[in-house]
């Protein structure tokens, strides 16, 4: 896999989803109920059969419309470390440094952004003390400074993309 996944080539037009896909995407972003036969429960809410729901969900995952379906862990609550970090990388070095940074298992997400600080990534570790160590290792692997920006206060997280 290439280190750099460019945005979808066909994004000039908005994607179109069937009514069933739309309802499944919207409903399942808000969470599966903690009950026995949870997919049947959601299918019932949406007026689908359990098999239709499971099939649609699998298809959305296969097409990578959904990147995963499962528990969303809260690293901080798991006792681990989590931080956002940024780097300023010259354009000609960007691809090389991307590979060096992405090689770290502790780097969970990494985005290129249009700013002087042009690389932004999330560092997640099982032990909070390891954040500083990982950042120091990224600095020595790349030769560039890493600006560590751990959250100091969390005001809200509500990720929901209606379609």
């Amino acid at each position, binding site marked *: 896999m290439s280190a750099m996944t460019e945005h979808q080539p066909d994004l000039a037009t908005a994607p179109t989803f069937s009514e069933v896909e739309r309802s*499944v995407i919207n409903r399942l*972003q808000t969470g599966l109920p*903690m009950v026995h036969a949870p997919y049947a429960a959601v299918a019932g809410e949406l007026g689908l059969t359990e098999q239709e729901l499971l099939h649609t969900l699998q298809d959305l995952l296969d097409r990578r419309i959904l990147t995963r379906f499962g*528990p969303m862990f809260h690293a901080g609550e798991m006792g681990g470390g989590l931080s956002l970090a940024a780097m300023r990388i010259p354009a000609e070095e960007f691809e090389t440094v991307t590979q060096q940074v992405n090689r770290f298992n502790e780097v*969970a997400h990494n985005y290129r952004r249009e700013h002087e600080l042009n690389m932004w990534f999330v560092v*997640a570790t099982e032990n909070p003390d390891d954040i500083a160590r990982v950042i120091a290792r990224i600095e020595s692997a790349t030769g560039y400074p890493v600006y560590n920006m751990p959250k100091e*206060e969390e*005001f809200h*997280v509500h990720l929901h993309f209606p379609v």
Partner: protein
Amino acid sequence: MSISTSRSEPGYVLCKLDRQLILATQGGLPLVPDPWGTLGMELGLPADEVLARFQRMQDAGVIRRVAAVPDHYRLGYRFNGMTVWDVHDDAISDMGRRVGELPFVSHCYRRPRHLPYWRYNLFAMVHGTSREEVEDKASQIKAVIGDTSEGHTILYSSAILKKTGLRLRKS
């Protein structure tokens, strides 16, 4: 429309079975009618206990929820704008809370400045199907923050370089 983060007392300790359940599901929950029973078979636990443990981890905030994670680009939300604000320190908690209440702000955090390179201390993520939509949302944030901010900018993402989610190591 949106889900709030459940906050918990810090210090929920994952026991060995919780860890095994996390390891078994970090790639995804089984897509079968009885996912708890399937996981239970793998780990030698009754379905009831698997479900009860998931419920407890969710109540404790270790798991935010069991849900679908979309690729927002593929849903048509092409513009991912990290709006960042240089807010007076004495106003930031209040402003952060008010900005976080805006329905279109997906994440809102206070983070440290790194002067002289980085002066922004409030981060509010917004998404849109166009740059104009993101800019319109940023101006709604500005209307809330008013003159408690000395300046702001929007950092658009131009490529996803990596997206694997949080993972426990199988050690």
